[in-house]
């Protein structure tokens, strides 16, 4: 089987079987990355365009390498957000790219819904690489892959996500992904950064970080952005670190072999103690490696990979 949709805009509506399909396909992809010659001809003749309206180093590099390891041709377009207002609209930019023959368009955009707008406009497959506070599906997929690899399962695990949930697309995609595969998701963070109604997504909101960490199998730390302080959303990084920072004492509340994860880039010493970030339980670097593998799988599946099995099924 293949993926049922043309695009990957989010995990909200992605069925569990399709999430598993992506994770299954990421495993051999990881094998390719670990080879001496990291190149397979799978996507030869396919073109991927990354369109980034927001600064990003790792996501963009990750997509770029994923495509190159699969022999796709890639090009990156950086569009400053300010030029959106004075110049070409997103849809016109998209049409231009489509006219050049792109098979896959990867979009990073500061506004929620941008990927869906693009997906509606284009015949090409659209991969959402983060749209505002909406979703960042490949991040959640690589997180699921990493946890599954380390723990051998997702079902029944307790996952604590700590930090600025309100502005986090990573948190939203992870809530959908982990709950769909049977994990229990708990959230903790400043009340001012907890979005209303988030329980309806299937997560539990904890008043104290300690409650979220208690017996957790996965501790997922989100980046706290200093701008939120200027917006009056929390008093400051010092207090944040005291109330919500992950340190050795707090990590002890989780199960002994709990995984520590972070989508990066980290504010060391703010949301996470440097010793924890570099500690034995941290899988933060492996998340990055797995990101390439998962994106290879997504590119493969969205360009028609896997669908031939439907016939022989």
């Amino acid at each position, binding site marked *: 089987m293949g993926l049922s949709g043309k695009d990957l805009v989010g995990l909200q509506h992605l069925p569990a079987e399709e999430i598993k399909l992506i994770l299954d396909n990421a495993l051999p992809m990881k094998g390719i990355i670990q080879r001496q010659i990291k190149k397979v001809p799978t996507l030869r003749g396919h073109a991927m365009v990354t369109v980034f309206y927001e600064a990003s180093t790792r996501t963009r590099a990750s997509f770029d390498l994923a495509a190159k390891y699969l022999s796709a041709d890639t090009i990156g377009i950086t569009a400053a957000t300010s030029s959106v207002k004075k110049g070409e609209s997103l*849809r016109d930019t998209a049409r231009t790219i489509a006219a050049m023959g792109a098979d896959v368009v990867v979009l990073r955009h500061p506004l929620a819904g941008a990927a869906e*707008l693009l997906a509606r406009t284009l015949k090409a497959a659209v991969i959402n690489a983060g749209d505002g*506070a909406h*979703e960042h599906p490949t991040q959640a997929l690589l997180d699921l892959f990493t946890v599954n690899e380390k723990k051998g399962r997702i079902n029944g695990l307790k996952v604590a996500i700590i930090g600025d949930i309100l502005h986090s697309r990573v948190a*939203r995609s992870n809530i959908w992904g982990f709950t769909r595969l049977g994990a229990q998701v708990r959230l903790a963070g400043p009340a001012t950064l907890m979005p*209303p*109604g988030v329980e*309806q997504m299937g997560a539990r909101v904890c008043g104290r970080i300690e409650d979220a960490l208690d017996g957790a199998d996965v501790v997922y730390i989100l980046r706290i952005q200093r701008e939120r302080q200027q917006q009056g959303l929390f008093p400051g990084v010092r207090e944040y670190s005291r109330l919500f920072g992950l340190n050795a004492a707090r990590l002890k509340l989780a199960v002994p072999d709990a995984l520590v994860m972070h989508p990066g880039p980290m504010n060391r010493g703010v949301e996470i103690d440097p010793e924890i970030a570099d500690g034995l339980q941290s899988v933060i670097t492996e998340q990055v490696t797995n990101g390439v593998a998962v994106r290879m799988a997504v590119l493969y599946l969205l360009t028609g990979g896997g669908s031939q099995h439907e016939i022989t099924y």
Partner: protein
Amino acid sequence: MKLLIKGGTLIDPATGKVGELDLLVIDGRIAKTGVNLSAGDAEVLDAAGKLVTPGLIDMHVHLREPGFEAKETIFSGSCAAARGGFTSIACMPNTNPVADCAAIISYIRGRARKAGKVNVYPIGAITSGSKGAELAEMGDMQEAGAVAFSDDGQPVISAGLMRRAMQYAGMLNMTIISHCEDKSLASGGVMHEGYLSTVLGLPGIPACAEEVMVARDILLAEETGCPVHIAHVSTAGSVRLVREARARGIRVTAEVTPHHFTLTDEAVTGYNTSTKVNPPLRTGADVAAVRQGLADGTISVIATDHAPHTIEEKDVEYGLAPFGMVGLETAVGLVWTELVATGILTPLEAVAKLTLNPATILGLPKGELAVGADADITIIDPAATWTVDPEQFASKGRNTPFAGRVLQGLPYATILGGRIVMREGALA
């Protein structure tokens, strides 16, 4: 010039009477109503099976001229009003320049007369440039024909200035129409704050952003005695505040838009920018509350907040699109489908909220079918079902979330001063 409207059901909210009567118009005025009137030399308009009501009044319209003629003009907006069954509309002052002085009020009235489709009553700005700093020349504007004052689109942020505005408008016996939105609470929001804004990742506008200012303006209305009209009420809390204030005898009235009594924030799913409106589409509980407010009389007016925008402006990311949707040409269908067919309002109550009640608030000599009154008349086919097709709109705006929706109830004819300006969707 004579016109006989024959065989229709007359609905006159001024008398509360509903009955099958013919209506004779002579020289722009209602000359006679009665059973089986003879036509004589009059043109006969067969209204059998249809409702004959005073010309509908929409007291909340954005005509965009001067300044934003790509979105709408006084002419295109007037045509949209006539197609929607409206004979009178009041237009908001957030044009460019802002309608904050007599010259612009006169300009709008002149352009509207030239368009000649419907009566256009300008609403003047409360503050100079609607900037919320200094009072605009309300007395001058009243003399030039302004019918109320509002900074609609923008709240009057300073309570002190709003109090002065109410004192001054009260002196002129004029109504203040308040756009209630505490910007510090709404800050940056683009939809209702709740579960769906969380799922969609869009910044939310909490219900309290509206309610805080509704409460403030009720207190100021009580203190100053100035009549205050709350524009586009959207939350259950606002309905409750207005209900309590009216029970205490405060001179406060309220309106609701068809989209706020029809749609919930669910409509935003999929990021259709035609659903982006201020105040935002709220929850099912809010929709139920405004419907209850309509039924019990707390909300006495239905107004569209017709807010046209160009396709280019709306065909963008949700966060970048301007707020607003068109409403003139879908209002009657939505009122009938959502409120009358469902039994929330009787036809008489619905017509009152579209005619007599807004006329009373604005002090217009309209909204009745009495002998001698201006022959502004709307004929509605309450049984007609139709599908909303924005391409058919006379408005320049296509930004409606109701495209493709099947509605029951359609304006059949619009008569302005005895002259048929619209019949079966076609403008004369």
